[in-house]
């Protein structure tokens, strides 16, 4: 119970708050001290399993500088129950019939957002991918190609630029209908386009196995010791003359490290193959290439010389 000064009683009196009318009423004389108080608690509660069309949110999306009008315009939606009322159902149709310069952009952003969601990427990367797509779309030279490949390539480039590379196979897994080859070609095309346009090179840098190590190790539930050892091993392996893709080397190093650990949690070749996207045969071959140099790359604090003898000779 709060106390406020009542002008009628001229003293501090106990005050009652009436929620239904929003009045603050003096309990002694009944004078309404404050009316129309605004309730600032939440209007409704949102649950995860509720359907989308009963969403009472009145706020639209945030301002998007990439769209021509900022994405702030209002769209007339289809009326509920679809009455035969001519005006309300036609207005929506007429608005959509007019050419919308952003239609392809909006579709692209939607697809890129869905792909980024599936990969679990941070919004920074998604926004960067959107920007790249907008730059590419302005140049109008990608109309002919497979659009899914273009969206995938934009996402791939964005990941690389933010130093959080994703393998082409991972990106391929979240697209619907773009092969690794198409994505690769699209990516080369876009990079060339943008370098010519902006005049400065895209800061992407070559991929290293190290960039993928943390992610692969986490997916495979490796211990922190193993993760650290694997990262160090991969760094050392780059000096060796192993002519394999960095991803294959990463997979082989993970396999080697897991073989050296205690028997309980030896990771199967199949699991490594699923986590990295590298075929089992390729991991075995890369392991064969890596085996002679095991002592050079595995750090001393992780495994001693005699432990290395336990490594299965491929």
């Amino acid at each position, binding site marked *: 119970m709060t106390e406020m000064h009542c002008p009628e009683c001229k003293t501090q009196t106990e005050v009652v708050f009436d929620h239904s009318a929003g009045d603050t009423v003096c309990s002694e004389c009944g004078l309404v001290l404050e009316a129309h108080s605004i309730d600032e608690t939440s209007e409704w509660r949102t649950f995860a399993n509720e359907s989308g069309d009963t969403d009472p949110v009145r706020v639209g999306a945030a301002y998007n500088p990439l769209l021509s009008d900022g994405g702030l315009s209002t769209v007339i939606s289809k009326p509920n129950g679809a009455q035969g009322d001519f005006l309300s159902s036609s207005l929506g149709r007429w608005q959509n019939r007019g050419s919308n310069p952003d239609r392809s952009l909006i579709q692209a952003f939607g697809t890129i957002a869905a792909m980024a969601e599936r990969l679990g990427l941070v919004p920074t990367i998604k926004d960067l991918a959107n920007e790249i797509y907008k730059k590419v779309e302005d140049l109008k030279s990608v109309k002919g190609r497979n659009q899914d490949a273009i969206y995938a390539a934009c996402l791939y480039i964005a990941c690389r630029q933010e130093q959080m590379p994703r393998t082409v196979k991972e990106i391929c897994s979240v697209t619907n209908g773009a092969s690794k080859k198409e994505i*690769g070609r699209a990516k*080369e095309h876009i990079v060339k386009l943008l370098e010519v346009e902006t005049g400065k090179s895209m800061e*992407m840098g070559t991929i*290293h196995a190290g960039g993928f190590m943390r992610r692969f190790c986490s997916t495979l539930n490796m211990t922190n010791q193993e993760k650290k050892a694997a990262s160090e091993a991969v760094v050392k392996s780059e*000096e060796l003359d192993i002519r394999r893709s*960095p991803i294959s080397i990463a997979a082989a190093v993970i396999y080697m490290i897991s073989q050296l650990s205690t028997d309980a949690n030896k990771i199967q070749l199949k699991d490594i193959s699923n986590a990295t996207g590298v075929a089992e045969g390729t991991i075995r071959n890369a392991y064969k290439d890596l085996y002679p140099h095991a002592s050079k790359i595995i750090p001393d604090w992780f495994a001693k010389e005699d432990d290395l003898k336990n490594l299965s000779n491929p």
Partner: protein
Amino acid sequence: MTMDCNIVEEEQLVDHSWRPLGLEPTIQNVVALLNLDCKLDLKAIALRARNAEYNSKHFAACIMRIREPKTTALIFASGKMVCTGAKSEGDSKVAARKFTRILQKMGFPVHFKDFKIQNIVGSCDVKFPIKLERLCHFHDGFSRYEPELFPGLIYRMAQPKLVILIFASGKIVISGAKRREETYAAFDNIYPVLAEYRRGKKVTSLNPIQFKSESNEVPPQGYVSSPH
């Protein structure tokens, strides 16, 4: 090497002081274009010649092959012809003449016009492994290296303007030259670059990255994990 009247330009392209002895690119393929100057009936050619194939739905040209020199020609209905597969410029011209002879014998009024070599592909082996990643890093404007997509580094040389595929084994492919001299010049230009990024080379003062140890090249942690 045949010396043309363009000898002055050749001297500017080729750095003779560096020419490694006995190591020069071998020409693997020569592609030439030719104008036969007469409209051709591809269906008739395919039917009459034993060594010709023509699938109009697949590709709009007749594909003819001869055994000596071992070459393939794409013959188009407009009278243009592309001759590929020859191992030298001379062979390419000889093969082109043989193809025109075949068509002449069939009764077409062909002429041997505008023979021009469009592409010469050469390969070479420098016999030492190469650190492609470092090469890509320091020649960023010219190189493209995507180990996920293709194991070779694609080097687009500006002068002479052609493409060199560089592999980690030390084998290289030089493509895009219109004259043999350009291929040799490109090789002369790229050899010192390859030698600089040789794997297992001791660190010299030429390398801009300073290493802690002198004997083994250990790229510092910073370089490996954070590309520029």
